[in-house]
């Protein structure tokens, strides 16, 4: 089957898609966008989190055919979406690097998409709100402490720079 989908603002097409394929497979293996990660493929880890028509979802649980005609944003599109200059990071991405929130990094893309969504909805979340918003994203390396630091840091930096934006 053929699937047409807009990914990170670009219209993309894939042919000969097997009907049982997930959006995750489509992105990773057919569209050259392996940033979204294949950690569990059962919706229990959040590593494949992407935005589908703006809404964070597990790409592993979206059938590729369901994405036909839809709009997808992956970790590869976060910086551009945030208006970062070419070669620069979005505030959330930069905060993850700066706060030491990245170790092996396999959970990072999904966490970034989830955190980006949280900060868009709530620019100044409480710790409990951050925890609840990120509770669908497993991390095995960090114990989450530095991830919480990163989200707080991104929120604080955005608040400071956002005065004029």
């Amino acid at each position, binding site marked *: *089957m053929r699937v047409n989908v807009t990914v990170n603002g670009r219209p993309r097409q894939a042919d000969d898609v*097997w*009907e*049982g394929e*997930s959006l995750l497979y489509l992105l990773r293996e057919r569209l050259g966008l392996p940033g979204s990660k294949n950690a569990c*493929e*059962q*919706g*229990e880890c*959040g590593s494949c*989190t992407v935005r589908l028509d703006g*809404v*964070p*979802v*597990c790409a*592993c*649980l*979206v*059938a590729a*055919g*369901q994405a*036909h005609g839809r709009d997808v944003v992956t970790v590869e599109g976060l910086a551009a979406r945030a208006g970062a200059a070419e070669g620069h990071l979005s505030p959330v991405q930069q905060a993850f690097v700066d706060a030491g929130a990245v170790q092996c990094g396999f959970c990072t893309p999904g966490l970034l998409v*989830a955190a980006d969504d949280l900060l868009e909805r709530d620019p100044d979340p409480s710790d*409990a*709100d951050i925890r*609840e*918003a990120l*509770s*669908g*994203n497993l991390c095995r390396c960090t114990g989450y402490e530095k991830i919480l630091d990163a989200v707080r840091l991104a929120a604080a930096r955005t608040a400071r720079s956002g005065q004029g934006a």
Partner: protein
Amino acid sequence: MDFLRPARWEEALAAKAEHPAAVPIAGGTDVMVEINFDHRRPSHLLDLTRVTELYTWQDAGDRVRLGAAVPYARVIERLAGELPGLALAARTVGSPQIRNRGSVGGNLGAASPAGDSHPALLAAGAEVEAESVRGTRLIPVEEFYTGVKRNALAPDELIRAVHVRKATGPQQFSKVGTRNAMVIAVCAFALALHPDTRTVRTGIGSAAPTPVRARTAEDFLNAALAEARCWDTGAPVPPAVAAEFARLASAACRPIDDVRGSAAYRRHAVGVMARRTLAWAWEQHTTGEGTARCA
């Protein structure tokens, strides 16, 4: 495998009539797991995500007609007033990502005894709107679950909506899992006060082959509350009544030992949740206040 993409409800019904083995998929939160792990290879996937009416809900007098594919996140955000028990249950489903995709209709279609919606639907009172090219029928939710992962749908039927009675009193939902988020129920309990009829209804999840009401416990409690004139006076539920209610709720379970929990624990926990949810709901009823913050 074929991928069917009906744009309208009638097309979906026609496709299901033509391919009764087709597996409907909306949020994909159950179906895609089975496909990814090679547990299921249906001949057809019937994608319902283009049938937009399934994502809407309507006020239908004393009920909400909830489209089959309305995601849990929407139930939490928009329907916590009319359907508080279902909203509480929805908040315990999977993860934020899952709640953005999964739906009550999907929960019913899968009919897992561990589905989080079921106890809340049983306690509130609900009917499943099932439809095929042959026509529409409303199935009381109690009759919908027919076995482990089995439901009352005919092969050519699809779930179009769920009709859930609007709350006339406080509702509670409680679920035990061995993790503080993103966990499948070891067991769950829902309770709804219906002051209009002076009745209490319940729902038990994951402690029997199907979701069930604890009818003996309900009958006992309804009689005991009437006898003690609690509805008239707003007096607290007598501890002995609460204890017996909990015991009967526990006795309504027919649980198994499995990798998620023991049968004995499930019976025990359902009793504890029954007692606690009754206390919370009754306090809300008598004081008009909640005791837990739904942030």
